[in-house]
């Protein structure tokens, strides 16, 4: 009934550009959008390079003295690295002999020989580092780069997952309505009835600790807002003529939902995506601060900020600056990029 008529001889006409091509063209004309795209791409490249071990591979190495000054502040006094000896408590006494009761005593000689063979190299610690050091004397710039790996990866993937969940569920609820809508609304209510941070903490308590867990937690707790907005968009679009037309030419439900309506709702989704990347980077900060986030041997902007809050009082601002600036630039660029994307994708602006 709704079969498409076979079109055997297509007339030689100019192919009209598709939605994405048009959007790309519009984006190319948007200078702010392109700058932001370049910044985001740089960050992603940096993140990948750090993941591949090309940059900041030995961020964990202690290269400088404690709170080493940044190179451009070489002369400043660094109280934290100064030796303060508690003289009153020193002693030159000979170590006590334990050999008569020690279960390890029979192998003392072998132990000594083996120990002598293991070389211990003393690292020379620098007084200054390019962008300053943290309390262990690690390079703050390298930490920020390494930290981007965790933060961007977590923020981006969690936001993608949350958007995916929110979009699919929102599309289903909005498109089908009725029972499906009732069920999903009920499901949504459960999630929103629990305060956000509590929900995160509850998930964090149940799951094992790790990076993948943070992503799952954030995705599972963050989809609700997107769901509501997408659902509303779908309810709005469902009855529109172009959807009816699609139905008339025999497009399936899935095709109507994701091929026809989705592009028209994509501006909402994209803006949501960008906002969630930002809020998830921040949520990772909170989780890390509470000790539920990244493990101690990893670094993220969140852990850097958590450390920095005490450092600021003692005048060591560079860790806060490195993490804060990296985050601010990325977040701003990302928001503006998605704004440009929205403009580029909005079908009404054709």
């Amino acid at each position, binding site marked *: 009934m709704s079969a498409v008529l076979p079109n055997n001889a297509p007339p030689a006409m100019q192919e009209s550009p598709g939605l994405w091509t048009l959007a790309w063209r519009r984006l190319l004309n948007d200078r702010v959008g392109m700058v932001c795209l370049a910044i985001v791409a740089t960050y992603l490249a940096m993140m990948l390079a750090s993941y591949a071990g090309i940059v900041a591979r030995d961020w964990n190495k202690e290269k400088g003295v404690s709170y080493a000054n940044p190179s451009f502040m070489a002369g400043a006094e660094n109280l934290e690295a100064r030796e*303060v000896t508690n003289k009153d408590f020193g*002693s030159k*006494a000979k170590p006590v002999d*334990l050999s008569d009761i020690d279960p*390890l005593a029979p192998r003392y000689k*072998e132990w000594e020989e083996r120990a002598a063979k*293991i070389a211990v190299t003393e690292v020379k610690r620098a007084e200054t580092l390019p962008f300053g050091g943290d309390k262990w004397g690690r390079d703050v710039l390298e930490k920020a780069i390494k930290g981007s790996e965790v933060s961007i990866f977590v923020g981006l993937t969690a936001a993608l997952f949350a958007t995916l969940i929110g979009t699919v569920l929102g599309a289903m609820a909005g498109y089908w309505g009725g029972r499906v809508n009732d069920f999903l609304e009920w499901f949504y209510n459960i999630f929103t009835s629990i305060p956000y941070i509590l929900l995160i903490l509850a998930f964090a308590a149940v799951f094992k600790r790790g990076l993948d867990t943070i992503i799952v937690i954030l995705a599972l707790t963050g989809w609700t807002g997107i769901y509501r907005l997408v659902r509303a968009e779908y309810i709005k679009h469902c009855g529109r003529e172009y959807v009816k037309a699609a139905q008339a030419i025999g497009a399936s439900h899935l095709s109507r939902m994701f091929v026809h309506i989705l592009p028209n709702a994509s501006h909402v989704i994209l803006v949501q995506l960008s906002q969630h990347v930002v809020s998830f980077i921040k949520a990772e900060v909170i989780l890390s601060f509470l000790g539920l986030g990244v493990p101690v*041997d990893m670094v993220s902007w969140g852990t850097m900020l958590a450390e920095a*809050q005490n450092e600021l*009082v003692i005048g060591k601002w560079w860790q806060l600056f490195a993490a804060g600036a990296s985050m601010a630039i990325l977040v701003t660029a990302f928001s503006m990029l998605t704004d440009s994307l929205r403009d580029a994708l909005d079908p009404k602006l054709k």
Partner: protein
Amino acid sequence: MKLASLLAPLAAALLLAMPAAHAAGGKVFRYAFEIAETGFDPVEISDLYSSNVIANIFDPPLTYDYLARPIKLIPNTLAAMPEVTENGTLYTMRVRPGIYFADDEAFKGAKRELTAHDYVYSIKRHFDPRKRSPNLYQFEGQMVGMDEVLADARKNNRMDYERVAEGLRALDRYTFQIRLKQPNYNFLYYLAYCNLTCAVAREVVEHYGDRTAEHPVGTGPFRLAFWKRSSKMVFEPNPNYREDLFDGTPPADDAAGQFILSRLKGKRLPLVDKVEVYVIEEPQPRWLAFLNNELDFLERVPNEFANVATPNNELAPNLRKRGVRMERTAGMELTYSYFGMKDPVVGGYEPEKVALRRAIVLGQDVGAEVRIARKNQAITAHSPIGPGALGYDPDFRSTATEYDPAKSKALLDMYGYVDCNGDGWRDLPRKSAADECKPFTIEYASAPSAQQKPLDENWKKNMDAIGINMAFKKAKWPDLLKESKAGKLQMWGLGWSAAIPDADAFFVMLYGPNGGQANHSRFDRPEFNRLYEEAKRLPDGPERNAIYREMNRLFLVYAPWRLGVHRIYTDLSQPWTIGFRRHPVMRGFWKYVDIDQPVLAQASR
């Protein structure tokens, strides 16, 4: 109207949450705990913060001269020091008549006098199996007849408080007697240790039952007026508190002590009208609240701010200009990380297990912890005994506690802790090369706080360096304490402050029969236990010190703990806060603290 009524509780809640400005008229002493309290029943608590609180509410029979150094015991609720006879085994104590408990509904409106029976009852409570006293170990095996009482109580799971034991009984309304099985030269200190011997009233315990910990009713200078768990406590003077005048005998060359004495001598205690204690776990808000004059006293400057408050271990010029006073004391205390000795991986006494623990000890850099994490506000511990305690030897050194990653790695290699599956971490030793690889992780329990993080980082990087995979179990401190008592933790870092000024206060944590109570690691070696019991029977002197040294050596070779540090406490008082002097073991100091209102008024203008 409606909005206002809605907002009022909110505003009240906000006011409660913030240290309020000084109310006109009353003297308020405000300070903060860094770790939350757990409860206020003397028999149930072992944590420092709750112990600090109860020492201000309840009265033990003896106390210390607040300002005397070296420390000196004086009668508290007793008419005189206990009469010690029969070779130091019979203690007779006479309670001063006319001391009253704070009023409480449990007394049904009557004034309730403190009697000898209260002390007997309160000490007996430690033997009640249902109370699960964490301090019972101090009394076990000490008093004639009480071990039998304990055995029966455990059998029936019910304590018979009517049963009279020869070793612990009241002779009349005001006299009670304790008979020890053998001389114990620390027993007098027990009588000044609130957790052990503070007097509670039986009516109160019976009235409140399981909620006794929320209703502390004592004869001491303060009573609990408001309590929001883990957040805020308010204490007001006990109106029934006896006449108690400020006195002390500071050494002539102790300027700070002499100053306090000159200002406060002869004044009636307590000196303030209210004590407000906040729980502020994070160091930065605590420090800023002090700088903002929201706290009158800062107990222990957080390490992060050591170089701001006390650069070069001297008070910073800006604080000195404000008139802030500093006190630095090496605490009679210790931090350590214990190994669960019953744990299949880190526990055990076979050479291979000992080797693993010794290697971890050698591989952990306490020096870096002192320098970086603790900002030099600590000294490395070389024995489990805290500085200043009887039996502490400042010259005790050993090669077993030094930081030597090469020796650590060599030891692990030697006992077969090598990486056999190639994942970069060492695996457990195998009987033969054909056996399956047995990977292992060591789980270190720690509380999620900013102060703990650098300690965790230090552990992690040290263990990485010797190839041991360490993971961290994050939970709140009181939860960890519960798990630790149940023996569920593999490793945990703890601090311990001495309650009695003797090495015994530290060795109790290694005495086998105390496993699950003070002995968190459940270390249990017969030769160590024997020495411990022997030392208890000896007075302070070279003979006992030799035994302590031997116990130190045994401790070092079996390594049930990684020794940490002895912290140095830096306490800051605002210019208007007078009277704080850190005492090595005495806990209740609130009654000695005064607020100089003219100075305060000037400062807040």
